[in-house]
């Protein structure tokens, strides 16, 4: 397949193979249990990450929570 260009937290990233949101978060985050994800303007709950495919041009925001409150 052609390479896929996406934006994660404002930074462009290129992937050579198809991937799910779950794959992407595992790839970029130290602990996915601390992360919330927004895909093209919508929050995607973690239960849907595996079934959510990333497509060329997608814009993703990941927020990683840290301890303290």
């Amino acid at each position: 397949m052609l390479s896929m260009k996406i934006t994660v937290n404002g930074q462009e990233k290129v992937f050579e193979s198809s991937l799910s949101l779950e794959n992407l978060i595992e790839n970029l985050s130290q602990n996915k249990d601390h992360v919330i994800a927004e895909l093209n303007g919508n929050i995607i709950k973690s239960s849907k990450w595996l079934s959510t495919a990333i497509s060329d041009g997608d814009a993703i925001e990941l927020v990683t929570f840290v301890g303290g409150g």
Partner: protein
Amino acid sequence: MNQFEEGLLKYLSEDQLKKIQSVKIGIGGAGGLGSNVALILVRSGFKDLEIIDFDNIEASNLNRQNYYLDDIGKPKAETLKNYLMDINPDAKIITHHKKWDKISLENIFKNRHVIIEAFDHPSQKKDFVEYYQDKADILISGNGMAGLDSKQDITTKRINNIFIVGDNVTDTQKGHPPMAPRVISCAAKMAEIALDLSLGFL
């Protein structure tokens, strides 16, 4: 209208105060963020709050949380309620002295306009924000407000209806101590967002 509310009218119009008082707030956690956010909100005129916290007050909380020496050993949620009622005796404060989790929340934070995430643990923060983001008009979450050396700015990031306030970096689980100045400035910013939204400024 009580004396406190009459005092507020020196700074707010009746219409503004009515708007603020009509907003129902839910707060998850009554620690460093939660106890201070609640205090600032009630001082700002909010009077309909629901608060959940399972914890009791410890000596190590007093460096930043809105409690005093005599409170050690008491439940946080109920103790906080008492202080809030000392400011506005007509406030309607519902408290739950229990641990929030994804299963036991059927009746917690129903029909709240603004929900505030003020928990300690990152996985609980995530679960709470994911759970409530489509159940409230606005969700405000605190993320990163610790450390002695404040090189990291406390900022606000907006994603849809979620406002995330903090430096997003300093982690109490990684040795950054939660100290009053940063914890309370984060709490104040969170409360400011709720106030601005209620008055239509955001």
